[in-house]
């Protein structure tokens, strides 16, 4: 047993030289590391988490010299790698430790990668994908056998996603390659920290530590309020009507970050600000995931140096180091979750009073309610949980092919290794066998996959990749983040601008104009996954609509909202945001009723479109989508029909040409929690959700091979759409487990079935308030206005086609 004072001494000394004092949690983490423990450190941004995790490996580096790779530092964003390398290096130098600390990400040049292989640095900063890739090469034991520690930065970002599962599998491999390996994670505060720790550490001899940093920073959440008596839009998603107050807020600041929820919103805000303040051109930046990485890095650098008055960003800037010159943070639209809001607010530098400030700009009236609710929830310390994923066979299949591409693997040992992760702790032998069959035979042994080759079992019993070509192709597809095929956007004259989803470009024709990366561009042509463009001077353009990025309202926020409405009804509510929209709330009360805790508001309105049913359970958009499809299906059991569905965070809409009369008994039957999963899945057979979900799974599991942006057509012959693949598997291999997984993922993640279940149970106790407003009420209107059409039909495909044919022929007769 070492004496703590002695071993921590070099760090204490360095801290003192900097004029710092180590915080209690930092000392605790250093000591735990020296004691050989693993664990998770959580605290607010900017509290010294990184040094808490980095201190241990440095101290042991001082006492036990050795060569080879000692520490792996995993970061979720490659954009963070540079900053991490420099801050880790500064601390190492400070302690007089002569370590090479290098990064390795997707853009590290081949020459450096080669050098890293022959002369490994002591510390490698990398991403989960690059780690997977490293494990797909041979001699992993030589490469990782001397590893002391893996440190996972921003673990909360990975947890709950397939990237997290991918990392869990890689960590399980590393635990085998390097016995005694210590694993440490850094996380923001979450509602489920113990699960976060267990998922990171997997099964190990001793329980891991959970080390708590200083309490959260003070956070002031305010809303941009409309002028008194100003009409506030009932629905919308841009929020640019509040441009003027935002501009004056920006003018008062030295440097600001303006966060939006979608890339399209970012483009529009960037353009609107620029139009209003042409002289800001040099000091206004735009940062989102589709913009060329080099450009993004320049912007990040500029932010650090204080070169920007304002940078408009999406979640692409949620993570990472603080930008100390930034003194104001603005959030356009609701943050949808408390954790996310706190994280964004934490991007700005520390004011002397230790206060972070964030100005929320509502895009429509009801978002003011969300902002007030977020402030309440924050004060009460209600932070969302991020549940870890389990049994993702697509990720497992990819991981096994990676191992097969490297040193190969032994089935029994690897089964045990995989089961040592949190994600696959309950993996049953049948599912394991199926996954093995999937990568070796294409599917179950008895089904028809002649000539399939990917992984083969050698005479020594080890599983290895069949050919080098296959190994190379697999390496190109490693990763779990999927998107629509990415199209590179380039100038005709050369110069890469960024990437955009194929779906958007497919809608454009040569000559069409669109707004991208803050530029007005004209499409010239699309060739081989590259869209060639030139600058355009036109003033009207389309804005690309990117998929994803729309989080549902968290339960914690939704509950606060209902609570606020109850207080308002009781005349007790003093929140300025609520008072600002009181005319709207009054109108809702006059035409219908205000939603309340313990009550379910149901509205029925007729329009030229048909008969609308609006229901407001306040369970978040995803759960409402599922509920809408469930209710439509159950309604359809009584009388066949086609329904158009819409959902938002507050409620759902069902529209049909004719809806049956609904009394309370009938409604309660529709909302019954009994047979939920079966009914939901049955309703989805008619829907497209499972098919859509299968896209990502097919990509991760290697069922479809996508080309790469800007890279030739060598792989063109191998392309098949995931939809075609889905239909083919359903027909010829209906028991395919990845089809099951798609259905399960739709239930768990896309529809949040557990939240639906919870909601239905609560609703069965709730009082039902039935209203028949003549017009759409203020709560119904946003649903009508932002309807995302999602067809769920209980008619068979043939009936639908017949109905469509009849309509088409009728229309044809008229012309």
């Amino acid at each position, binding site marked *: 047993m070492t004496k703590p004072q002695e071993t921590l001494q070099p760090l204490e000394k360095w801290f003192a030289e900097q004029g710092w004092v180590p915080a209690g949690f930092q000392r605790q983490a250093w000591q735990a590391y020296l004691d050989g423990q693993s664990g998770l450190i959580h605290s607010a941004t900017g509290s010294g988490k990184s040094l808490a995790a980095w201190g241990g490996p440095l101290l042991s580096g001082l006492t036990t010299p050795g060569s080879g790779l000692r520490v792996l530092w995993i970061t979720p964003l490659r954009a963070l790698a540079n900053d991490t390398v420099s801050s880790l290096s500064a601390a190492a130098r400070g302690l007089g430790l002569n370590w090479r600390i290098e990064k390795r990400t997707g853009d590290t040049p081949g020459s450096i990668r080669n050098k890293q292989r022959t002369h490994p640095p002591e510390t490698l900063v990398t991403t989960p994908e690059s780690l997977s890739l490293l494990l797909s090469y041979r001699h992993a034991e030589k490469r990782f056998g001397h590893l002391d520690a893996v440190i996972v930065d921003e673990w909360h970002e990975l947890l709950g996603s397939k990237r997290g599962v991918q990392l869990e599998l890689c960590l399980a491999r590393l635990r085998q390659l390097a016995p005694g390996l210590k694993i440490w994670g850094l996380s923001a505060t979450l509602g489920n920290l113990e699960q976060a720790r267990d998922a990171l550490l997997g099964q190990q001899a001793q329980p891991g530590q959970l080390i708590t940093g200083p309490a959260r920073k003070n956070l002031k959440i305010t809303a941009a309020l409309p002028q008194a008596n100003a009409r506030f839009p009932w629905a919308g998603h841009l929020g640019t009507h509040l441009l003027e107050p935002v501009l004056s807020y920006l003018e008062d600041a030295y440097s600001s970050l303006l966060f939006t929820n979608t890339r399209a919103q970012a483009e529009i805000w960037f353009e609107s600000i620029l139009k209003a303040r042409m002289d800001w051109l040099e000091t206004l930046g735009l940062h989102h995931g589709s913009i060329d990485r080099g450009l993004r890095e320049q912007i990040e650098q500029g932010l650090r140096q204080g070169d920007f008055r304002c940078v408009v960003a999406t979640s692409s800037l949620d993570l990472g180091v603080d930008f100390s010159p930034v003194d104001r943070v603005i959030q356009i639209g609701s943050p949808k979750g408390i954790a996310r809001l706190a994280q964004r607010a934490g991007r700005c530098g520390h004011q002397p009073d230790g206060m972070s400030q964030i100005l929320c700009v509502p895009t429509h009236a009801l978002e003011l309610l969300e902002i007030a609710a977020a402030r309440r929830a924050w004060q009460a310390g209600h932070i969302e949980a991020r549940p870890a994923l389990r049994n993702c066979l697509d990720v497992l299949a990819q991981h096994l092919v990676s191992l097969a591409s490297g040193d190969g693997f032994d089935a029994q040992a690897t089964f045990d290794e995989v089961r040592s992760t949190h994600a696959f702790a309950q993996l049953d032998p049948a599912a394991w066998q199926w996954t093995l069959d999937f990568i070796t035979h*294409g599917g179950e042994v008895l089904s028809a996959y002649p000539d399939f080759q990917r992984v083969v079992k050698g005479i020594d019993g080890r599983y290895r990749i069949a050919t080098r070509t296959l190994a190379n192709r697999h390496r190109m597809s490693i990763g779990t983040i999927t998107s629509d095929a990415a199209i590179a956007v380039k100038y005709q004259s050369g110069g890469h601008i960024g990437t955009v989803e194929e779906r958007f470009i497919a809608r454009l024709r040569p000559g069409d104009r669109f707004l991208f990366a803050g530029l007005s561009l004209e499409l010239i042509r699309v060739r081989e996954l590259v869209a060639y463009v030139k600058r355009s001077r036109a003033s009207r353009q389309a804005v690309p609509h990117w998929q994803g990025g729309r989080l549902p309202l968290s339960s914690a926020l939704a509950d606060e909202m209902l609570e606020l409405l109850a207080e308002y009804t009781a005349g007790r509510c003093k929140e300025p945001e609520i008072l600002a929209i009181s005319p709207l709330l009054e109108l809702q009360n006059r035409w219908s009723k205000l939603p309340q805790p313990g009550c379910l508001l149901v509205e029925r309105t007729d329009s030229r479109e048909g008969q609308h049913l609006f229901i407001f359970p306040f369970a978040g958009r995803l759960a409402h989508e599922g509920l809408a499809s469930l209710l439509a299906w159950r309604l359809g059991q009584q009388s066949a029909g086609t329904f158009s569905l819409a959902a938002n965070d507050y409620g759902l809409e069902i529209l049909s040409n004719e809806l049956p009369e609904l009394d309370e008994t009938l409604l309660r039957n529709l909302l019954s929690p009994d047979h939920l999963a079966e009914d939901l899945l049955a309703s989805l057979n008619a829907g497209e959700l499972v098919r859509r979900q299968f896209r990502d799974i097919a990509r991760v599991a290697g069922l479809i091979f996508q080309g790469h942006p800007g890279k030739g057509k060598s792989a063109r012959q191998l392309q098949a759409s995931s939809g075609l693949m889905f239909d083919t598997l359903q027909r010829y291999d209906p028991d395919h487990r990845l089809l099951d997984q798609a259905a399960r993922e739709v239930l768990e993640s896309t529809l949040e079935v557990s939240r639906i279940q919870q909601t239905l149970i609560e609703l069965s106790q709730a009082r039902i308030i039935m209203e028949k407003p003549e017009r759409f009420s203020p709560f119904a209107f946003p649903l009508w206005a932002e309807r995302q059409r999602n067809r769920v039909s209980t008619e068979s495909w043939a009936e639908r086609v017949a109905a469509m*044919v009849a309509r088409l022929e009728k229309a044809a007769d008229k012309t």
Partner: protein
Amino acid sequence: MKALTLELGGNQLTLLAERGLWWAAQETLILADLHLGKTAILRRAGIPVPEGPDELTLQRIDQLIQKLNPQRLLLLGDVIHGSLQQHAELIARLSAWRATHAKLTFEAIVGNHDRHRAVIESVIDWRAPQTTEAGLIFCHEPPANVLSAPWLGGHWHPMAKLRAGIDTLRLPVFSLEPTQGLVLPAFGEFTGGMDLSQCKGRQRFAVANDRVIAID
């Protein structure tokens, strides 16, 4: 089955709901883009797609032959998806299938995927990329400009997204192009498709279950 007949270059052509074209005067059945062997090629490349679609494609041709009793089968290119060198079983299956239709003439226009056609030389008589017959030009890739006569082609696997009321569907289409030609939908089972939007001078005919309907 409700079919629809078009006149092109003085020829009556029937658009079949089975995604083929019937040229009654010449007793010829015209099909485009079978892409045979695609699933086998994908499997060989490590992509696990089950066997089955090819067999269904052949069965559907058999059914059409039985129904229409043609003298000739004319394929508008992309009969095979790629090299079948390593798929001897498939070649044998195709030869055997060909033998069951001994009296039928099999002809095909060379498509971009038919580079490796040598292996099925005995099954099909290959014809030049643009072959003229009875005032019609048969090709695989639709030409960019008007040709000396109306043309028939494939290659695009045309589909259309239809919306009626609150329902949307994606269906294969025949497309009569402004460049005086008709593009056939892909006949093969494992082919997918490309959305063809409405445009001036284009007329699309959707294949919906058992009928063909004009949608423009």
